């Protein structure tokens, strides 16, 4: 008998009688203004939130902060080179990456992005700074609504991203930019 079969046989033998799953529909009924809550929470976890009317404001932001730097984006409006063909490690040295989120979650200030938004999986991590465009109408209250939207999306990789990379491993002092992006700016449109 293989380990697999032995393990499964023992688990089967030792597991208690089956009990039902609880009802999740009673959860996630919190009521608050999702946009305000999202912005507050995102800022609290170290992100910057900028409300914009159109993409020109993002372009201005990039021009002012990253002129002459390596800026990459998955959005056609901002893309300067075809970086999708580069190897993942060649993306080291990206100064600013701009992507668009599918939706945001107000209760924890996170945004959901998956393979189709990322260009490359490593991109939002390896970049020094990250920008995310989020449509205000796509902010939902809690994680329960989040998974309703995700449903059975056929991604290979998906990610809730909440604020910049951080650590508090040294005496509980919060430091931004542990391994991933040092900063996150969310453009609310």
């Amino acid at each position, binding site marked *: 008998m293989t380990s697999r079969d032995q393990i499964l046989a023992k*688990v089967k033998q030792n597991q208690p009688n089956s009990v039902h799953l*609880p009802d999740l529909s009673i*959860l996630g009924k919190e009521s608050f203004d999702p946009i305000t809550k999202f912005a507050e929470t995102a800022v609290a976890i170290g992100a910057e939130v900028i409300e914009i009317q159109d993409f020109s404001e993002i372009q201005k932001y990039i021009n002012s902060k990253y002129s002459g730097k390596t800026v990459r984006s998955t959005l056609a409006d901002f893309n300067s080179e075809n970086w999708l063909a580069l190897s993942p490690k060649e993306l080291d040295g990206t100064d600013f990456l701009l992507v668009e989120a599918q939706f945001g979650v107000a209760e924890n200030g996170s945004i959901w992005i998956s393979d189709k938004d990322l260009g490359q*999986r490593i991109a939002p*991590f390896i970049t020094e700074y990250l920008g995310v465009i989020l449509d205000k109408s796509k902010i939902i209250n809690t994680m*329960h609504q989040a998974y309703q939207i995700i449903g059975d999306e056929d991604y*290979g990789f998906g990610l809730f991203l909440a604020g910049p990379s951080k650590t*508090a*491993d040294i005496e509980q002092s919060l430091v931004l930019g*542990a391994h991933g992006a040092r900063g996150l700016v969310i453009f609310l449109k």
Partner: protein
Amino acid sequence: MTTHSKSAEIFNRDFERTTWHDETLYFVRQKRDKAAFQIDDWELLRETASQIKFNVLSNLSEYLIQFEENALKNGIKVHWAADAREHNEIVFNIVSEYFEGNIPHDTFKGIVKSKSMLTEECHMNEYLISKGIEVVDTDLGERIVQLAGERPSHIVLPCIHWKKEEIGELFHKHLGTEKGNKDPKYLTEAARQHLRDKFLNRKVALTGVNFAVAVTGEFVVCTNEGNADMGTHLSDLHIASMGMEKIIPQRQHLSVFLRLLARSATGQPITTYSSHFRKPRDGQQMHVVIVDNGRSTQLGREDFRNSLKCIRCGACFNTCPVYRRSGGHSYHTAIAGPIGSILSPNLDMKANADLPFASTLCGSCSNVCPVKIDIHQQLYKWRQVLVKEGHTSATKTLMMKGMSKVLASPAVFKFSGKVGRMLMDKMPFMVNNSLNLWYKQREMPEPPKESFREWYKKNRK
């Protein structure tokens, strides 16, 4: 003295440091409270999570098969390890096969690893290193203890027992940082640069698994630093080690656990990265190793099976007044703290017989547990099992038997009370000849002239 109490006594010799350790961790507990109390439905969430996990335990074999089937469809290779040894061999074989049996000790062929308590439990690092494979821990805290030749003292905050001055010194020695620089920002930046190089040059990444979803065959890894993702997305080979209890039925159940996990662990509303791995990247290999290592045995212990609900948030560590004042290493196991004390005896009763006694049974652990494990009640029950299995000292047993006899007999009790009122060692909580241990730092109660029952006879009869 037991192993734990000896180490704890040594830990407590440094009064100021014990204060610091206690206060640092209590601060994390307070952050947890603040985050939890912002959710009106917090207690309902805990109850729901607990029920989901019970459903998981009661259907575990079916869910495991379902997960395997779906992971395979996604292009993930699935392995099964009965114990720690088999887990380590599987990991070695995957790596070895990838490099076609040729494991030269060069930097390209090491492994970058993100936090996985399971690999600690399996002593995997030591094993792989003995086989010539370099393993680099990439979580900052884990890297610190690794450079120091230690093990994590906390499952979420691995180097919570280290002071920044000491980390500055360690980094000066190993990473060449400025001598005397203890600024957390500076030290974190140094680790970022040091590990960025490792991430870019390693082809193999190892991660743990926080949750694995049966119906989709995907798994979720949560970090704040982004080290799991830096490792995996740059690697050509991703191996994820997973305790088999990490299964949950459906994607929607992640909502409950992701709401609870970080709030319980650090007081954050969610970890910075909650990464859902469902299919390997083009050209990448992805493997999941499902590990039993005693879990199926624990599943069969009715009194203790709920311990398998644990999602490794560490909240019970932070609230535990004993953990905060004895340090993680005094638990001498990969998983310390209250949860470790109910998991470890399952793995080795003899070696870990002291741990269920390293508690006052105050119950705070059970109250903060996001999946409502009855931790303190299991500590009590483990004590009964360990005594019955003969894992306590003979003198203690003799004394307890004697005490029980005295206390079961009113006549003997009244008599020994008269004789023994001057001697507090006749009280039941005084383990044989331990009076000196009470008296070492505490006064004894002043013996009254008469007992309550003597007073009662005179005044109310």
